[in-house]
């Protein structure tokens, strides 16, 4: 059995059973469950990244306004999207009945940046500065055209609820690197681009059919980052210590009577809870961060619950050995007023995203931290609603969108994939969602085909029966 993957409770059981002078077989039986066979335990090969920070941009960022310049579109401005481009593909019910599909070129200017010459829009000046550390995939595509199924597909590899999220898979495969914090932590925020944007669901960081101990723990903004973390009013840490000591004494009486390892596991979990009571507030307290942090991540970083503050937290979590850190940032659903809303949304996210890359690099952590930035789909080249000189809306577009990756295992300063002149169809190096997920696992030393879990008689995996690691972007 892979020692890294052994969960706390297995460790405890092992101690218990060793004390009881019983062999390892029972431990293996206890801990294995329906899980991996011993010889399939990751890492399957040397990992490049120890951890992942996934900056999920919920709602569908507009690739055409941010990453995928199409200067030649200017001449099509206002003209109906050619049928040769749309090729009869399905549209969402929101625009399917639109009388026309007026082509809406981005009103934002694009330029090339860094030695790699990555194209980025003027909305992303900070990202531009770290462009040489990143790898842009402009040829992502997905099967889903609506938020719920699309975001569920991105995060769990399946469009319907019920499958484990990518972080849960990683937690299941690799276990924790630290003893004071959960191995998978989710952070949520909403931008000013669309404050009433799509909701998020527990399932996006849930464990699906995996045991629930693998699910992500959502940290909340404010005083109590983890639910039920704080002792009740009037009950201080010293009293809690006393409480736990007394509890352990009573539980140990029971343990002597019953050989049930669950009892000592429970004692250990109460201790872990106690450690979290101090480690989590220490972690989420940014007051001791130097001024430089806030200059780098921007003033929003002082406000708990913002994307910027969460990016700082992500770095702190990475420093503390949290395996999978996933930020979910809402507000990218620009059906209307795309230019102004998108500008707001980028103002919230551009600087902190870039700062995180910069910060990790400076601390020597970018080499073994994989950072992923992207949403569940892209947006249409045609305008949803009226196209004016300064305004347009964009509907969901599954056929192409952009994500970027940086850090552990990824070749820096490159762009893969191309789209047609309308940023509508992928014309080169298509990358599907399963490919991206397979690649993320690969960077962590996991063969996505071998990380399986038997459920309902089938060996399930994150990538179902699909997925090819995107070899050309690996470092």
């Amino acid at each position: 059995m892979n020692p890294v993957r052994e969960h706390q409770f297995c460790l405890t059981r092992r101690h218990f059973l060793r004390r009881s002078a019983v062999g390892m077989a029972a431990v293996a039986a206890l801990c294995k469950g329906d899980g991996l066979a011993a010889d399939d335990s990751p890492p399957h090969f040397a990992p490049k990244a120890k951890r992942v920070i996934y900056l999920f941009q919920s709602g569908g960022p507009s690739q055409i306004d941010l990453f995928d310049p199409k200067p030649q579109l200017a001449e099509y401005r206002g003209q109906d999207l050619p049928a040769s481009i749309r090729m009869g593909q399905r549209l969402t019910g929101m625009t399917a009945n639109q009388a026309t599909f007026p082509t809406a070129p981005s009103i934002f200017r694009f330029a090339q940046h860094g030695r790699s010459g990555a194209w980025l829009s003027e909305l992303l000046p900070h990202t531009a500065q770290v462009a040489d550390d990143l790898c842009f995939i402009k040829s992502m595509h997905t099967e889903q055209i609506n938020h719920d199924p699309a975001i569920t597909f991105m995060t769990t590899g399946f469009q319907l609820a019920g499958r484990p999220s990518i972080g849960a898979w990683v937690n299941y495969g690799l276990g924790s690197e630290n003893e004071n914090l959960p191995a998978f932590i989710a952070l949520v925020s909403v931008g000013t681009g669309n404050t009433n944007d799509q909701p998020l669901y527990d399932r996006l960081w849930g464990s699906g059919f995996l045991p629930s101990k693998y699910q992500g723990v959502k940290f909340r903004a404010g005083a109590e980052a983890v639910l039920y973390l704080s002792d009740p009013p009037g009950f201080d840490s010293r009293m809690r210590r006393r409480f736990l000591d007394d509890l352990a004494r009573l539980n140990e009486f029971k343990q002597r009577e019953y050989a049930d390892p669950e009892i000592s596991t429970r004692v250990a979990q109460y201790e872990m809870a106690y450690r979290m009571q101090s480690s989590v507030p220490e972690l989420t307290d940014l007051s001791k961060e130097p001024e430089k942090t806030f200059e780098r991540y921007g003033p929003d970083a002082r406000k708990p619950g913002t994307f910027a503050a969460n990016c700082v937290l992500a770095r702190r979590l990475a420093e503390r050995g949290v395996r999978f850190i996933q930020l979910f940032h809402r507000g990218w659903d620009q059906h209307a007023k795309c230019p102004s809303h998108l500008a707001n949304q980028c103002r919230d996210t551009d600087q902190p995203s870039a700062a995180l890359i910069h910060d990790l690099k400076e601390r020597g952590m970018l080499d073994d931290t994989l950072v992923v930035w992207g949403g569940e789909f892209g947006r249409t080249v045609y305008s949803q609603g009226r196209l004016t000189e300064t305004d347009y809306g964009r509907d969901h577009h599954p056929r192409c969108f952009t994500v970027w990756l940086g850090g552990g295992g990824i070749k820096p300063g490159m762009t893969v994939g191309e789209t047609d002149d309308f940023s509508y169809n992928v014309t080169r190096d298509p990358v599907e969602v399963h490919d991206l997920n397979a690649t993320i696992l690969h960077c962590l030393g996991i063969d996505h085909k071998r990380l399986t879990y038997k459920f309902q008689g089938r060996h399930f995996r994150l990538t179902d029966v699909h997925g090819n690691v995107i070899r050309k972007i690996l470092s």
Partner: protein
Amino acid sequence: MRRTRDQSAKLAVLLTAGAALSLSFFARPARSAPSPQHSIDFNREIRPILSDKCWVCHGPDATNKKLRLRLDSEAAAKADLGGGRRAVVPGDPEQSELVRRINAGDDAERMPPPYSGHRLTDREKALLAEWIRQGAKWQSHWSFVTPVRPAPPPVKDQAWLRNPIDNFVLARLEREGLKPSPEADRVTLLRRVSLDVTGLPPTPAEVSAFLRDRSPRAYEKVVDRLLGSPRYGERMAFRWLDAARYADTSGYQSDRERQMWRWRDWVIEAFNRNLPYDRFVVEQLAGDLLPDATPEQRLATGFNRNHRGNSEGGIIAGEYEVEYTVDRVDTMATAFLGLTAGCARCHNHKYDPLTQREYYQFFAYFNSIPESGIHLRAGNTPPTMLSPTGEQRRQARRLETEIAALEKVLAAHETNIQRAQETWERSLAARATTQHWYPGDGLAAHYALDGDDSRFAGDTVKYQPGRIGQATEFDGETTLRAKEATTVTDATPFTLSAWIFPTAENAGAILTCAKEAEPSAETPAGEAPMGAGYGLFLAGGKLQFNLVSIWPFDAIRVETKGKLALNRWHHVLARYDGRRTKYGAAVFVDGQQQELKDAGDSLSEPYSVTRPLSIGGTFGGGGGEGKPFHGLIDEVRVYNVPLTPRQIAVLANPNPLDAIARAAGRTESDSDKLRWAFLASAAPAEIRRAWRRLSALGLQKARLEAAFPTVMVMEELAEPRPAFVLRRGSYDAPGDRVSRGVPAALPPLPEGAPDNRLGLARWLVQPSHPLTNRVAVNRFWQMLFGTGLVKTAEDFGAQGEWPSHPELLDWLAVEFREGGWNMKRLLRTVLTSATYRQSSRASAELMARDPENRLLARGPRLRLPAEMIRDQALFVSGLLVDQVGGPSVKPYQPDGLYDGLVGSGLVYRQDHGEKLYRRSLYTFWKRTIAPPSLANFDAAVRDSCAVRENRTNTPLQALNLMNDVTYVEAARALAERAMRQGGRAAEARLRLMFRLATARDPKPHESRVLAESLGAQSEEFRRDPVKAARLLGVGEKKADAGLDANELAAYAAVASLILNLDEVVTKE
């Protein structure tokens, strides 16, 4: 031959090693005979290898891969593959291609191929060879063969037996060289059985009574008492709700509220009245199709509507119609058949004999329901039914009886009434009074608009000749605003009625009662924002009726399809039934109900708005184009009931009574108007009284019915929808058309079964069905022992786990079926067995030998399920409110539970008072953000059918039990209870708390720890009494002021300690 011998030797070594490892004691023969001579059992030892490692390609779906070799059928496996090669040559491993290929050294030759990710262990290879050597005997998959009652096996220790269950268990133990554990002590046993049957621990009085009862049947009496408790139904229902993916929200995207709790209450009731399981199955799957289906039987079909429903803007209806149907098939398959049918949605099942075509034959049973793939965002999506509670039904019956009696009285006087009415009509006709009559019951306000401004604030208006008397003129500048405010809520039904004479298409607001709106970025272009409330508008010539909670996310907005003609009088009427869906919004023009199109379909967030009614304009917004009205408005009436179509026709009838009386012909509304006017005002006194009473009762009944809850149910289209094989399972890739039918590998449909869901349901419960009873008894077993006899409770197929006690499973299954599918009886049999009654104490050796207790050499020791942990804390502290059924409740949740996750101002609105202390069964279940304190303890999330119980042990559970308001308050209430009822001595009080939580007395060393803990915490609170006050302030229930605060706080701290004990959250 030498090779075979080598292999045999190797096999012997491996089998022995396997036994020593103790990893797979189900796959290996009895411990005493690990030799190659043991007879290999195909089903137990070979099928799992073939299924897991080979069938992905060489299985039921081999045709898809264009492979000739199939290893899932005996004939195919032993057939000539060409050139005389055969995969399996019985008795001759050397000649068997299978053996050669699995042992091939060359990667290109070896099976399974390296790229498949599958590998055979040496032991598996040896087993396959040995099986072939022994003749390659084949068996049908065990779970597809109808169980026959096995004879209970003989055992040595006869004295231990209590019923046949014990024979099966003990026979296995004796084979394994193990002894059963002694019977659990009485207190432990009582707590175990109480939790198992009712979900709650025994009270101290129940413990004492049981200890006192020394009769030999004392335990059986307890079991009967518990099975008779109404709490039994609640306990059983919780697990069934997991299987039925019951929740209070729709589950996709914005995940708003729906109301399925009437179905949930049906489940509780079904368990409590011990509805036989076969009827339990039939009524839930097809209650609507039963001959003369009762309302209860129709209600039961809510089972098939508990699936999630999508309302996201832009989804394609057809896609989700398929998803819902698939969900019904998969749920039926998991819950009743224990089969993973979902695999066959996209291709033939890889492991089980279920083709893709057969999957869609199942599908064809469930797709003929008049349901749209686009669900309402909030509320119940049709088909629905009204489902009054028992109390509401009783009230309705009382009203109906009285109404019928009065109608009889009137009918008896019909000749007289008619004669009197004719006389009255003649006098009317002669008088020319231009009198009118309109319904008066439920009338909240009437503005005649005949020139009297005194009831209005706002602008001064001009009057013009109107439809009836004068009318008010609106020139686009003026608005009338009633002086008195009225309160409207999302749940209040009403009817708005007015005459209008529009002079422009965008004439604007007619009647509104809404909050001032705040413009927001999300307001659609070209529209004014709307505040919460209602509004009736004329926009673009069409009548628009809006009910708004949060515009535009949370609103009902309907519009007539046709336009109103300008410059003429129309009677306009809007009606809302208070049920929060678009189906409850109706618009009538000139007495005719209009066809509507909708932009917003339902309300979710409740609102209550107290504002004056505005006529002809809005104040600070309020809708549509936001423009004041252009034209005339007359005779505004607001009713606080939804009027009937006949009443509406009378309201829209402009003819004065005298004109009707004179006219040669009469419409229905003419006749109604005259008759009702006569009965109300001119009939003989006795008749008038009867009529008034009748009319008042009618109003009461309408109000009562408006409060009836609805529930989503099944209905069958008269013409079944065609069903097709969907290629790759995709909604837009239909292949061959299929008809309804059941898989060939299972028994055929019973003789004469109807070709619909009812036929399917009857098929499931026919005696020859091999799965339904096995799957059910296995789930009951799992409920009591933590693990089913088949561990994979959701999968009885080839990939499922071999039963630990196959004969016991079959015995129970047959016993269940032949005993009339009697659930209580089955449980009673298990609960009174010696097997169940064993102590759960295990030696370290036994724990190591059988960590999961699959051999049943001891009783179950399991952490309580999520709902029981909370219910127990509420119960022992005396907080639990013991009320069965009703709408779901919103108990304590951490502040800001939805923050950051959902927009649109949706928040968790916690309830207060008794609703905080109901059993967890009634906790409001939002699927995308499940109640964290239940989710932390492994509750199923209810997205899809879940039948397997899951238990983890995490730090989040520790935090939850220590710090959640629920448990802090319960600890304090437990402390209060101990201080009030436990006497004066600390020791006695501590003992009482401990007894309430564990059912037993603490042992001296435990008492010592409790006392020391109390001492230490008392010291803390004495040092800082502010802390005590703060701790006691947790929770909405006020602390008992009669108790010393410092002392109470210290007891509360110890009570919390007790509630956190491993023993307390564990069933022993």
